[in-house]
């Protein structure tokens, strides 16, 4: 067990994958000499060479498209999209090709791509550098989508994603890159928690707070604060956004009867709607109150000086908890 930042854990995950499987290779902008703008791939070029750590021309559709061709040839490409907001030029190749080729060819062609996306806000960045596009990919059948919230998961789930024979869109919360945590570097991958399962990161009894990525920490902070008020929150880290771990969600909501879902992405047709609708479909009888969404607003990401008004924080989560508990809250007295 060692302490390391998420950035280092991701680098360690890539190194392990490159070492363990000669078919793994990395593609991206500035991932070579520079080691990536976040230095996740630092040192990998000199360790594994330019044939496996590939600085690409500046063209995201091209990156994903050639990765598809490499997968056709038996490789397992791991792509770094430089920032969340730069994945959209590759959308067609991801949605029409990566997600569909295995289905199209009835299994003849596998697409074991991993698309790493430095992700989300809270870092004071310029426009297009704080996006949370995960719902687009969750809505796209044929992809798996995961999000990590701590260095251990980053290290393990990245290797699981690379080992997966299905394409995985892998979301890395930028604002946690420099946060440290314990990482077990030597545990065999086979012994690790499967990528598709959620995790109860704090057990509780009154309200389930389901979240993922950077918001898990905020939810944990909210749970600590709530405890002071005598409210016990169960915090669930979804980890896998597609497929969702329905069993874990249902089990928690059946215990608490109340649900708050938290994410940075805008609300409309966002992931919280899927989580809530799924719980409603399966566990309507167990719900003691309407589930609550605490999310980004339905705006383009605002200028970073105002991003604290966009991003869910501890107080907004607690307000949502109040709603879920039927206690006075910000919406009390408002028209619905």
């Amino acid at each position, binding site marked *: 067990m060692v302490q390391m930042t998420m950035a280092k854990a991701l680098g360690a995950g890539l190194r392990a994958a490159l070492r363990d499987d000669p078919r793994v290779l990395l593609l991206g902008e500035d991932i070579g000499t520079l080691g990536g703008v976040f230095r996740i791939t630092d040192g990998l070029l000199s360790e594994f060479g330019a044939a*496996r750590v590939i600085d690409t*021309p500046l063209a995201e559709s091209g990156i994903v498209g050639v990765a*598809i061709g490499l997968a056709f040839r038996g490789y397992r490409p791991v792509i770094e999209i430089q920032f969340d907001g730069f994945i959209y030029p590759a959308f067609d*190749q991801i949605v029409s090709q990566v997600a569909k080729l295995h*289905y199209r060819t*009835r299994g003849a062609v596998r697409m*074991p791509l991993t698309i790493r996306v430095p992700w989300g806000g809270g870092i004071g960045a310029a426009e297009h550098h704080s996006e949370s596009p995960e719902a687009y990919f969750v809505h796209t059948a044929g992809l798996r989508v995961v999000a990590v919230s701590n260095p251990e998961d980053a290290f393990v789930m990245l290797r699981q994603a690379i080992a997966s*024979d*299905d394409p995985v869109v892998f979301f890395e919360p930028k604002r946690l890159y420099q946060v440290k945590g314990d990482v077990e570097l030597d545990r065999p991958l086979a012994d690790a928690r499967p990528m598709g399962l959620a995790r109860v990161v704090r057990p509780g009894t009154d309200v389930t707070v389901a979240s993922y990525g950077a918001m898990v920490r905020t939810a944990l902070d909210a749970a600590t604060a709530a405890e002071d008020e005598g409210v016990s929150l169960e915090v669930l880290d979804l980890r896998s956004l597609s*497929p969702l771990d329905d069993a874990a969600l249902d089990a928690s909501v059946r215990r608490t009867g109340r649900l708050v879902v938290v994410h940075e992405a805008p609300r409309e047709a966002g992931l919280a709607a899927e989580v809530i609708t799924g719980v409603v479909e399966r566990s309507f009888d167990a719900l003691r109150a309407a589930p609550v969404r605490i999310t980004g607003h339905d705006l383009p990401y605002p200028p970073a000086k105002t991003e604290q008004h966009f991003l869910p924080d501890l107080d907004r989560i607690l307000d949502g908890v109040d709603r879920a508990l039927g206690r006075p809250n910000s919406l009390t007295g408002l028209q619905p």
Partner: protein
Amino acid sequence: MLAPDGTRRPCPDLDRWVADVTPEQLRLMHRDMIATRRIDREGVALQRQGELGLWAPAEGQEGVQIGTAHALRRDDFAFISYREHGVAYARGAQPGDFVSIWRAEEHSSYDPYAIGVSNPQIIIGAQTLHAVGYAMGIQRDALHAAPGTRADQAAVSYFGDGASSQGDVHEAMVFAASFGAPVVFVCSNNQWAISEPVALQSRTPIVRRAAGYGMAARRIDGNDPFVCLAAMREALQRARTGGGPSLIEAVTYRIGPHTTSDDPTRYRSEAEVDAWRRRDPIARLEAYLRSMGELSDAQAQDAAALGERVATEMRAACLSMVTKAPLAIFDHVYAQPHSGIAREREQYRAYLRGFDDAE
């Protein structure tokens, strides 16, 4: 290389690439072109008879498809569009393979690895990037090739004149040039993208794009199968020997409609089509072979008979196709077990069972 009337003209640039080609090889090309056209006609007929939802005819483009395909080695890999069934046929696709997609039974038919041809691509231009990536894979495999094994495969991407406008095709050329990838881009410039003339896509020959990437290129008569073979051999050799990517612009013509749903009388004249009919690639190769005394009537009949056989098999395969079972739509969404799809399949199974019970 071959004039429209089939006379052999010297082509100093490319002659050496076909100096070793035997009459037998040309007869095989001729045979495959005949079969390709026969497949096409059967496809159109089947569509008219309501057996296929759609057909995208390649009539007139057999020269570039068969000429270039015959330059390929077994272990090369071609990334094709929806109109390149000639390439697939020449590489070993079976008659039934051409109908399952257009009958909407499957999204693709043959195993790409079995014949070294990708499933036909519908998203315009997308396959060019896949070819480049595949070629980059070839480069990487070569680094670790066991001594004595061949590591000099090439990838090919076919695409249309309309496709040349897509950003993906540009990015494919950028990547190919940047990495010196062993790939050949074959642009079948058939003058039209549905109703849009090539002049709308480019005011200048598409071949000129290549120089902008520092890529070798040739503009050839796509209705001359011989020159297609030669230019493709040249480009493939370049790819195999570390010379990087090439672009071939094959000037040809789509004699038929864009697809069976299209009505080309709305946008082009019969006179234009007629002029191109007189440049028919099959007649051209046939005239050449005949003038050399290398195609007997019996041989020509054999080729026609083979075409008939292919067409008959294609029709039989079409008519005997059985739509897959409902629950099969849930297969192959993922390569590995997936809780979401498993549950949906179960739910739909239960739903369908309700109808059985009702009966």
